[in-house]
């Protein structure tokens, strides 16, 4: 067992659990100032943007990455379930690298 890794997990537990539990403990938590609410609303999107770029482009070609992520976004905006979308993306990527080894 790697102690540093488990400590990291425990640290993440504290942060994640607090965020999830706060509304159960303090029902009025969401009536904070508009500016803080605005920050809370966009910080996860900012995090996701920085998670995708640049790391998504590496394992497979940039063209295939753009195509797969484009389809992912399109299907989600159309209302497709998250888990189904992820499975579609795995399938598309597999088809892409199997059929088009050069792209």
């Amino acid at each position, binding site marked *: *067992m790697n102690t*540093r*890794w*488990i*400590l*990291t*997990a*425990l*640290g*993440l*537990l*504290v*942060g*994640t*659990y607090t*965020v*999830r*539990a*706060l*509304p*159960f403990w303090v*029902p009025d*938590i*969401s009536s904070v100032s*508009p500016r803080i609410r*605005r920050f*809370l*609303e966009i910080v*996860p*999107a*900012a*995090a*996701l*943007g*920085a*998670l*995708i*770029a*640049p790391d*998504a482009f590496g*394992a*497979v070609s940039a063209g295939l*990455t753009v195509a*797969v992520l484009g389809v*992912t976004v399109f*299907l*989600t*905006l159309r*209302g497709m*379930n*998250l*888990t189904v*979308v*992820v*499975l579609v*993306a*795995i399938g598309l990527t*597999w088809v892409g*690298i*199997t059929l088009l080894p050069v792209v």
Partner: protein
Amino acid sequence: MKQFFSGLGAAIPIAGGYIPVAITYGLIVRTGGLSVLDAGLSSMIIFAGAAQFLAAGMFFSGAGILQIVVSGWLLNLRHLLMSSVIAEHVDRELPLAARSALAFGITDEVFGVASWRVAAGGTIPPLFLAGLEIGAYLSWVGGTILGAAVGNVLPPSVRIAMGMALYALFAALLAGQIREVRGGRRMRVVLAAATSGGLNWFLRSAAGFDPGVAFPLAMVLGALIFTFFGPDGEELKPATAPVPPEEAT
């Protein structure tokens, strides 16, 4: 007890999506040099997919514990809004210990299914929510252990394709957030995501920053800029009406 099993049943579609993603996670942790036990324990302790992938990526690139914890926390701030929608519709008379236990399992997918119940009926029976969360939890932890233990039998092309699951998950979560908001608020969400992604790219390549430093910096800067600037729009209302059925975010 009937409610509990109904919740477990509602977790089946979640499990269908969780298991391949969890297998990928287990595989990544194992490939990075950690044990099956490390992989399984991290899923048991954290139970937050996107943050776990983030943590594994940063951990293997040598980031410090505090950097990882703060980044994961910022990423999971989105659960604050989801949790407040759920908390509002769970019996307030329920003992604090039970409410606290139910809070542990509010993931994006659990929120998606539970919010459908809110849209249909109003309240969420605590036993239903418990069944839903336990079903999701078991599939996440089980998938992780499976991936860490035997994921290496998968052919390389399948492993590479499953590696894309992570970024598809991020992109879908982002699209889900974009979908939830309207007008000026939507524009701000899009701009913040694009700016943070661009900044992270710039900091990593042109400025030569370490990933563990570039990521939190890009994320906070992108969010701060569009907290203070950007198009105006109606403000987010606390615990807004849940998203429509099937829109798992």
